[in-house]
């Protein structure tokens, strides 16, 4: 995709992410995160990961974030009156974040300079068929284990969220 298109996608993503960081009301944060996740799904599409993009929208924004919003509204969470991390911590975090981004950027940039040219993609790269083939062939065990994990998570969540009286 063209660079302009990229920036049109990337900049709102960053802004939405920053919203999560900066907004006070948890509901606003959650909504901001939803927007960010949508835009990331857009990035996935740009990167020929169509199945993943779809899953991102269905699972992440559609299920996980909805769950978040449910909980926030269930608990009736109020906006934080005083977002009071220590100033020093804020500065430190900011500096670290910035530093991290820069460094990774530098490292990655270097790698890309000497990297082999972009590979030629298979025809069904990123399609359901393509991903499924890899998934069920090379990563079958992991797949099955993941389903067990989901079961465990369900049970755990139910147990944890129950009230004490039986």
């Amino acid at each position, binding site marked *: 995709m063209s660079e302009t298109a990229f920036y049109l996608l990337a900049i709102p993503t960053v802004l939405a992410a920053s919203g999560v960081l900066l907004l006070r009301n948890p509901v606003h944060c959650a909504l901001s995160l939803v927007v960010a996740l949508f835009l990331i799904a857009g990035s996935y599409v740009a990167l020929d990961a169509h199945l993943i993009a779809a899953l991102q929208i269905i699972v992440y924004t559609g299920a996980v974030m909805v769950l978040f919003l449910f909980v926030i509204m269930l608990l009736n969470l109020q906006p934080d009156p005083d977002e009071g991390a220590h100033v020093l911590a804020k500065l430190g975090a900011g500096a670290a974040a910035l530093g991290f981004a820069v*460094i990774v950027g530098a*490292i990655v940039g270097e790698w890309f300079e000497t990297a082999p040219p972009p590979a030629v993609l298979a025809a069904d790269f990123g399609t359901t068929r393509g991903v499924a083939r890899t998934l069920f062939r090379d990563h079958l065990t992991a797949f099955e284990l993941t389903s067990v994990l989901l079961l465990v998570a369900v049970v755990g969540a139910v147990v944890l969220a129950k009230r004490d009286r039986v």
Partner: protein
Amino acid sequence: MEAHGSQLAVEQVVTTVAYLRWIPLLPFLGMLFHASVGARAGRKAVNAVACGVLFGAFALALRAFADLGAGVTSVVDPVYRWIDAGGLTVDATLVVDPLSALMCLVVTAVGFLIHVYSTGYMADEPDHARYFAYLNLFTASMLVLVLADSLPLMFVGWEGVGLCSYLLIGFWYKDSAKADAGKKAFVANRVGDAAFIVGMAALFWATAAAGDGTLRFEDLNHAAASLPAGVALAAALLLFVGATGKSAQIPLFVWLPDAMAGPTPVSALIHAATMVTAGIYMVARLNGLYVAAPQALQVVATIGALTAFGAASVGLVQNDIKKVLAYSTVSQLGYMFLALGVGAFGSAVFHVMTHAFFKALLFLGAGSVIHGLHDEQDIRKMGGLRTKMPITWATFLAGTLAIAGVPGLAGFFSKDEILALTFASGSYVLWAFAVATAAMTAFYMTRLLVLTFLGEFRGDHHKLDHAHESPVSMTGPLVVLAVLSVVGGYLGVPAVLGGSNVLGHFLEPVVGHPAAHLAHSTELVLMGVSIGAAFAGIGVAWLIYGRSPRADEGFSAKARGLYDLLTNAYYVDRAYDRAFVDGSVRAGDLLWKRVDVGVIDALANATAASFRALGGAWRGWAGGNVQGYALSLFVGVVLVLIAVWAGAAS
């Protein structure tokens, strides 16, 4: 002051033995016994061991004395090589020559008698074993002091007796006044000891510069003449300062009157017969050095005479039986230093011996009185004890006559010799002081005798009813010492009276003989003067106090100023307090508040506080603050990335 007979001319015949070490070792073992199992072993065992080791030491001293006859100049026991450091080599060697033999015999004999006396005097004392442990340790130290062949070894004994003096003066330490007296003695001694050490160092340095560095008495005496005059004088004076501390002369005498806080046998042994004579012994031992520094001898003589006179004047007005004797001791020690100062080393030692006899006798007699009257020490509350305590009375009388210088008794011969030689050396002023002192001595001793034993009893009649003569363990030594006080002088009968001065000749190989000579007629005249002074003192005191025992009250009323001056010993204590003690206390206070609390404690507290602050700050980071952890993690990751990237880039 003229030269005295040279010892160098005598050929040295030395016998080497191995038994001398047991002379101090026996009392030391006694101390170990008392210190470890004494309390459990019981009084009889402690008494037996304490007196037994002393008797053993005396027997060995006799043997050494016997070995000294037959042309032997000295008996030596090289125990072991003590110090071997660079240029300084010191052997722990014990030597018996005429001088140390005499001192050794006096120390062991009088020491033995006093130990026996103590078994009676301290019979009811709960800390019985501790007392004898200290007493034995003292004797051991004194014997080391006397038998040493070098300054460092003598110093070991010197310090040892100082320590035991402190322990014994403050024996009843629960009474803070008594404990303070012990402290005072130790501090005063310490000042002297500091000078002693510097003097020792000076001598070593000087002899090392001139050839072989040495601290042996024999070598020092030989080398003294060739040392630079300034060094010899300085060393002699410094060592003498040490002697003034140990032997209670001006300026360091202040501890001795206070030392009467200790048990009376302690006063007898340490502060009359032995320890205080250590200073005199030391000067006599180093006579070669002192002869090489004549100005030092002048200082010694002057200090001695002034101390003798001053102390005697203070003794005139004291009301505590022991204080009178204490000042008397200081005064008599002054006599001995006067003798040393005019070059009459042998006479000084002679007086040491006779003084040991009669002063120990007087102190033990005083102890007997105190014991019999159940701890009464004020002579204004005594009187008429002659009938109640006849043996004590008789022996005390003998001692008084001896110290007053009544002809025929020991004190007469030794004191007279000193007076004659002082006159002969040309120091007429000092001689006059000495004669005046003799008169005062006779006076105050007679006063003491009269007020204590004669006339009517002036105290609490309840005490009089209970007064009794002391047991044999106490009166026995009194009798022995009385006999010695009478006959002891016959060892030094001067030629003018037909005698041969046995003692003087005996000591000559070590201390030489004074060069001064008197015509016989002059000597007889001088003798008459001193006898006159003695009888004058006795007579006047008898007349005054025999008739009106309370005469002092009249005196103090008529001459208030003078009387107070004497009673307070010329206010020397107060002057020292103001000059040194107050300043030290204030300095100590300052150091405590400003430095110790303000600086050192503050520093320690600041360290603690800083750690606490650090911990507090740390806590914020390492507390349960999970986000803090996360931040740290994150920062760490970034740093690692930087490192990796920088590594990869280079």
